[in-house]
């Protein structure tokens, strides 16, 4: 492989990893607060469509990203209202979000762009100055837009906020022991509503990144299960943002390997790559379960204890 191919490889890996990473940041915050949102697929699609339509009309990527975040947060407000406030099952509402997002965006696309199938130009990359000279990584980074860097900044802030600030600790308490948090005057529902809306916004941003940067267009159902993968990434990360970032990058590298292998004689089906993360998470969950039942070293619990349980509990 020559350097140009390696650069293309890195660019492909990042293009695959970033939408997943953005979505997983919000899902991690949500899961830590005790809300399991399985409607990410719908939220991503809504964000992708809204940002695509707005950027196509206005020519502004910034406006597109803003609208994508707003659209994701808007749809996720249903989760905040129905599941957190009215205490309906998070699973049922999540399935509803996926259905609503998929149905709505597919209909709108069909009504507005199905005949013309427009594409967007790539967003302007951020100049990186002398770093450009680094082999492989330099040229790859020099093609990345502002959103790429902002995502990593957001990851860092989310990590700091979640683990080193008062509100962040309270949010994690809402997922660990909501009744204990409430006893010391914490507001469980407000924290969870905030976490859900933040998760909706980042899922919308994930969809936006996919549509505006990675694909340059919107197609119905373009997420292909990426929203569910984000749940996996958040779950494997177990609340540690840096792990979330690492896992998303590993996923991106695997996707890029799959694409690269299609150029060679080795056949590695897309389905194997799609399947792999889900197999891994099953194995990890089984291993954690085994470790806990064997009574060995107390394993870090795979999921916050209050995950997917409404507060206050009871009928």
């Amino acid at each position, binding site marked *: 492989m020559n350097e140009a191919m390696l650069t293309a490889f890195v660019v492909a890996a990042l293009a695959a990893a970033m939408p997943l990473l953005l979505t997983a940041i919000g899902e991690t915050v949500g899961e830590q607060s005790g809300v*399991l949102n*399985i409607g990410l697929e719908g939220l991503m699609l809504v964000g992708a469509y809204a940002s695509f339509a707005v950027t196509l009309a206005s020519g502004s990527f910034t406006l597109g990203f803003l609208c994508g975040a707003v659209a994701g947060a808007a749809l996720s407000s*249903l989760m905040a209202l*129905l599941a957190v406030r*009215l*205490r*309906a*099952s*998070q*699973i*049922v*509402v999540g*399935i*509803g*979000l*996926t*259905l*609503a997002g*998929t*149905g*709505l965006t*597919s*209909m709108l*696309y*069909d*009504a507005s762009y199905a005949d013309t199938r427009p594409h967007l130009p790539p967003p302007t990359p951020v100049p990186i100055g002398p770093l450009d000279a680094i082999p492989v990584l330099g040229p790859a980074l020099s093609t990345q837009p502002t959103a790429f860097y902002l995502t990593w900044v957001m990851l860092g802030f989310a990590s700091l906020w979640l683990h080193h600030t008062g509100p962040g600790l309270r949010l994690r308490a809402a997922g660990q022991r909501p009744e204990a948090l409430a006893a010391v005057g914490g507001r469980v529902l407000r924290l969870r509503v905030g976490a859900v809306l933040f998760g909706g916004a980042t899922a919308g941003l994930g969809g936006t990144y996919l549509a505006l940067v990675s694909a340059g267009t919107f197609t*119905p159902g373009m997420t292909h*299960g990426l929203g*569910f993968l984000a*749940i*996996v990434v958040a*779950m494997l990360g177990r609340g540690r943002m840096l792990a979330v970032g690492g896992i998303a990058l590993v996923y991106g590298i695997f996707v890029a390997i799959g694409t690269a292998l299609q150029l060679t004689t080795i056949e590695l*089906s897309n*389905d*194997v790559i*799609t*399947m792999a993360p*889900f*197999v891994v*998470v*099953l194995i990890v*969950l*089984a291993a*954690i*379960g*085994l470790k*806990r*039942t064997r009574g060995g070293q107390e394993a870090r619990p*795979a*999921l916050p*204890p*209050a*995950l*997917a*349980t*409404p507060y206050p*509990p009871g*009928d």
Partner: protein
Amino acid sequence: MSAPARALDVLARTVAPLVLAILGSAVVLLALGANPWAFYADVLRFSLTGEGWQQTLTAMAPLLLISLGLIVSFRAQLWNLGYGGTYLLSAAVVAGVAPAVFAFLPYGAATLLLLVLAAGVGLILALIPASLKAWFGTNEVITSLMTSFVAASLANLLVKGPFQDPSVSVPQTRVLDLEFMLAYVPGTRVHLGVVLAFALVILMHVMLTRSSFGTRIDVLGLNPRAAAHAGIHVPRMTVAVFVVSGALIGLAGAIDMLGLWGYMRTDWNPGYGDKILPFVFLARLNPLGSVPLVGVYAVLATGGTLAAQRAGISVDLLTLLVALVLFFMVIVEYLAARHSVGRSYLPRGIFKAVRA
């Protein structure tokens, strides 16, 4: 509340979300410049008149079986969300091996073997989340969902690999000869799988409402700790519930392949489970009650596909309509429960926690 008043109350709570969702979709149709009146008239015309009712009944077969699978597991407060992949993998296996099985075995034996095989695929897939839940207490929402994705990818791999028909350029299984498909009920174009589905609805209804197994499922669903105190072996019961649920959903794949489609393509996914889920809850997890509600969805799906084409809109309006049913159901039930200061008649699944 007297019995008739209560029945009326339940009926109102069941119909209201459907009416609201249909009205909501009508607003969407208006916004897209289509005539909602003509659309819904088309839906009824294509799904009920002429040959339509037979197509609607045929569409109900897999939907009823998947509903039964969901009902069994949701009644036990176990979330088997593996329905999507389970259906697809069972369908792929049946479509893939059917031509060979029919070549070696007589028609009746081959059909029976394929039905058992599909149920077996569903059963094995269900064992993954079931055993993780039973032994380690791992949240079955996640594990069944993950299993579903693995199964869906496996289905694709099989159809592209060993089961692919080499004589066609697109990846799909060999088309089953018409003579090997499930026979029609005499005088109709409704295959016998529909009859089997209805028979299983009655069987499951009796089992869930009149047998000790059904009672144990309900007790487990109400309170697993109480169930353990009542002498119910919770892990064994968890596995049993998942196995029945998975087998029924697997059966749906076989009946759909042998009765309706005859072959399987890659990346084909009717998404039955997600769309039928709100209706299963509206039926209050009652197998007999699910028949009219599955019927409503079958009418919308059968008639809606053609009606959407004629109205020039995407058939995904139906997906949106189903989502609206789900959201309105939650809101109506919440308001009704508050209004009558009584507890919700809706199965606890909707408003109760998922146990970790």
